[in-house]
């Protein structure tokens, strides 16, 4: 479950950044984004300036979530990979952990096999880094007891002034 807020220490941020850089170079990708399933960006590399990264990652996350839901309807239990095939550019999604997805943007001239291979090689390292971040976030969430654990609806909770049973 996406946590309330994410704190990334500079060491983790550097680790993610260098991992994404190396993935980008080795796979010949145009850009890579690592995002939380709630739509927050954990790290990104070479996203074109014209693209609003926050909006882009929110769309990527919702697209992944919708497709995951679709896969459940088909009886798939361990959903991981989506591939969007465009005319000139493609997108490859690979689930890193329960809470994060790696998305690679690559040109049509690049091979999907190459992208997939290097993604698979990078994922264990990324998963470790994400786990460290999540652990930190959980600890932070525990400190701020009283806030709702379901962070995605924190705003909802905040907007409520009436105690339970006030219906």
């Amino acid at each position, binding site marked *: 479950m996406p946590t309330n807020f994410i704190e990334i220490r500079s060491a983790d941020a550097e680790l993610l950044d260098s991992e994404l850089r190396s993935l980008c170079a080795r796979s010949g990708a145009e850009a890579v984004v690592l995002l939380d399933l709630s739509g927050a960006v954990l790290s990104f590399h070479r996203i074109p300036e014209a693209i609003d990264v926050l909006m882009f990652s929110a769309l990527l996350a919702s697209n992944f979530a919708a497709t995951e839901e*679709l896969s459940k309807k088909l009886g*798939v239990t361990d959903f991981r*990979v989506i*591939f969007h095939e465009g005319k000139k550019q493609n997108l490859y999604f690979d689930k890193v952990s329960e809470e994060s997805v790696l998305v690679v943007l690559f040109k049509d001239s690049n091979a999907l096999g190459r992208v997939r291979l290097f993604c698979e090689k990078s994922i264990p390292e990324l998963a470790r880094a994400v786990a460290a971040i999540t652990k930190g976030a959980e600890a932070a969430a525990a400190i701020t007891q009283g806030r709702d654990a379901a962070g995605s609806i924190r705003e909802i909770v905040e907007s409520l002034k009436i105690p*339970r049973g006030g*219906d």
Partner: protein
Amino acid sequence: MEATIDIRTADGNVNILLDDAQVGAIREVLVDLCLSTMAEFSMLIDAAGRVVAQGGEVAAFDSEAIAALAAGDLATTRQLARMLGEPEFALLFQHEKQKNLFMTAVENDAILIVVFDVETTFGALRLRIRRSISQLQQILHQARKNTVVALASASDATRRTIEEKEEEHEGETAKVEASAATPAAGQAATAAQTGLPEQLAMDVRKAVAWFEGFKGWEVMFKDEVAFMRNSLSRNRPEEVENVRMTLVRTRARLTEQKRLLEAKFRMVQSLYQQFLSALHAVMLKAWTAEVVDRAMKAAFAGAGAKFNMINAGAQKKPDGGWVLEFGAIGKQMVLMCHAREMNYQDGVGELLRQLNASLMALSAFLAENARLREELIQSWGRVFHHYAEGLKTLDLESEALELFRPLVRPGQMPKA
């Protein structure tokens, strides 16, 4: 043309009408695709998430749910494509051990979905799919042409009917006025006396008659309708331009309001259907199906004493789940708006109040149990966030948030 199925755009407008033969041809293409590629299942859906035709192992899949989810998925995929400057993305998800799915837009509003297992190689499937897509495109192009012709003749027929009715109506009005006034004055009581040019007078009369049939809109455009109605009998030549402008503006605003209402109604439909499904799933973890059904019925019946829209629309599916049948809900809402002289936007507000009341009553039970409460908050939170942008745009956010009210314990209130 005898249309049996229509293809709709994402906002619900009919785009293509298909007759039996065309639906049959589409089904043939889909079945053929499944047979030649060993794909398990294929389906053509429209952008509104409705199934047009399907082939393969139809019974093995919940095609309606898949269609609804796939249409939503393709909408976000399109947005992604637009962001990256791509005309369209085809979507493929893969699972090495279980099932794969391929989804692509055939026409603007028609989407092809193919489900295949690990035995089928995607390379071969892709080639075969291209052929099927071009076959489907041919059928849909032809259907689109036929639709344009059919709609044009239908609108002609409607126009003729309206004109005939108007003539009758004018005749009756003239008779009534003639009997009320002296014979000389009666003869003068013709359309020319409105002081409006003939065409404008006819348009205004049509507009007023239309509003009389749709009370919800009449309430919303009360002043405009009253002004137009009066202009017919006042005979003030200096008002002509004013009347013309009012008519044009009212038409434009009406179109805008209709679109807004439709968008709101659809948003409420998909959001609350998912809220209900999530709630049902969590309830089943706590009680037997029988108890859950009884609770559901009681909550729906308690949604409102008069014009209970939820009770009119909530139905139990054969598979045990509950659906909100929005066709029936919409009818009930229109009835309520007519009876109470409410505008339709307020009608949607009342609908939301009733939906919230019944779902809140149900969720209040679950809130007693910490684990179930948490589960419900999380699944509703997910659904809500999925729709958050749209809800904000349509000003529906606060009503949807109401639903979370009984789920929050005082101790959990964050400090402002």
